[in-house]
């Protein structure tokens, strides 16, 4: 971890660079959602817009976590703690997927049509 003043001074440029990427990522997300000719998949919101939007968001979140929150050079204990929380979330989200995979789940009804 950048702990000495010299090392911190060096990492300031990284922080600025990451900040810039986060700004650009946000603009990209808005553009692909609002500018018709940048729209992926079908016209309007569809699963490809969802995939693209969430991919950009995940990259941005990853940058915040790894650079700003220093997860790129943390101690083992922190990784264990954070990973366990993340695993719980994935299990929760997995429940949704299980419900969708249930043959009794009426996808036509739930799609609202």
């Amino acid at each position: 971890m950048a702990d000495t003043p010299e090392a911190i001074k060096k990492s300031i440029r990284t922080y600025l660079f990451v900040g810039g990427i986060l700004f650009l990522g946000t603009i990209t997300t808005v553009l692909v959602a609002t500018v018709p000719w940048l729209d992926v998949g079908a016209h309007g919101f569809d699963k490809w817009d969802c995939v693209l939007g969430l991919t950009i968001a995940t990259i941005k979140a990853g940058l915040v976590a790894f650079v700003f929150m220093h997860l790129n050079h943390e101690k083992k204990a922190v990784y264990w703690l954070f990973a366990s929380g993340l695993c719980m979330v994935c299990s929760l989200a997995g429940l949704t997927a299980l419900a969708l995979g249930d043959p009794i789940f009426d996808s036509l009804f739930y799609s609202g049509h």
Partner: protein
Amino acid sequence: MEIPYVVTPRKDTGLFNAKIAIWLFLASEVMLFGGFFSAYVFLRLGADYPWPERTLPVLPGLINTFVLIGSSVTVVFAWASLKMRQWRKFQIFMGITVFCALIFMVLKGVEYNVKFHHQAVRLKDYTIMEGHLGVEKEGETPVLDHHGKQIEENLIYVETSKLTYNTVRFHKPWVEELLTQAEHEKSKIILAADVTAITKEKEPAEVIAKAGEPLSIELLNKIQKAHLAARAHNGADRTAALEQEWVKAHAAFPDKRDWQIASGVNIDMKALTPKLLDEISTVAFSVEPATRFDFHPRDIKQADGQSRLRDDTVVDGKLLDSPMGFHHIDAIDFQYLVMKAAAKGISPEVAIENSWLIKNSPFAREAWEWHQGEIVKLKADLLKRYGVDKEGNPKRFPTHKELYRIGWKDFAKKAEDGGHAKLSSADSFKEEFLGPNYDARGDETFPEFSIPREQVAFAAKFTPAWNTYYAIYFTITGLHGLHVIGGALVLSYYLFFGRKMYLTNPEWLANRVEIGGLFWHFVDLVWIFVFPILYLM
């Protein structure tokens, strides 16, 4: 005793106390927000109505994203400044961070406020209309309720001749409101008949209140007191009588279990009745002369002849026309109607043509016809840009929302196409935050409209009551907002009260700021997902 590992890390974990604590906390936070995002997915997939896609104002959301990202950069700079022992720089960067939190909350407040004042109504045929309600007026002056607030034109009017209060459940503010209305209308609410009751055992009935006494909270309280005293007395008598019966039954059948003799244990009501006092569960007041009283739709179950308030007050009287008065309509949405029609195999166009709104509102018909023209243009544009597939079908076609919703921007465009004045770019920019500017655009763009009560199926402001989308929107953004406030308070504490610690133990303060910063980054990280999911999808 000195607390270990405040500044120096433990050897086994390599972490100081606060660091491990904040990561434990953040792990629990990940689960909390993860749970809400899962709930969002469930609600969206399970919605039995057209999910409001891309319905929130993007510009304020975008600015808030920039603000949070910016503050994430400045908070890490603030920490770096402390590490380099530059107090002044720390103050500047931390100051900017806290200021960013303030901007975020102000914008969020504006966004919420617009929602709290924006009215939606679903008609019986599933047409949805949005806009702002007018206010009750007498001539040009708005009528005020007993709190001195303006009253929206969304009331149920009953020409009331009699009010029967439940003496236990009556709601004090509603009594006061009706008294204010009666005073305003110069009518009287008086006790319809003497209230007589036996209030003491073995004594004759006494008059508690005389016919003609005016309605007041004190009077209702007095009757309530007599009622509750009688109820308590009667309850105690009944219990004592039942206990006696059990004693007798146990003596008569010493070998039997309670459940075997229970059916034969009954109170001797003949003996008990003379001892009971009179309970006064309701009390009737007549309104002289019969007067139009106004009730909020959520408080009354209206019916001609006899209506009932939520506090069990019975309102006798003729139900008058009680239309819902929109001062300005700013959206007409047929998506839900089309969805319901499709389930019955009816084509969208036929369903819309036969909707109550199109049949009864020339403005809505004109808007719908204009909108269809726009859709033809959009279809042609999509065909020109993207062409057709192998089977000759257009590759891209308008969305359900584009086809069947006429939003406020459409109404604005329609008026501008029709030659009405355009707004200045500053005013248009303001609209992105505050919604349509009725005053500047005028009635030609957003007309007044009155909906008969019998057509109203459900009405609400854009609050969690309106649908599950707004419920989860307010839950997630509200919880996130609380985190912003909490984080800003902690960071402000370091900014304004950290100087002393900086002078004695700067490394400890740097560690604290790092922990506060970690939380702040997490708040930013959550927003990075909230923004696209709620605002753009």
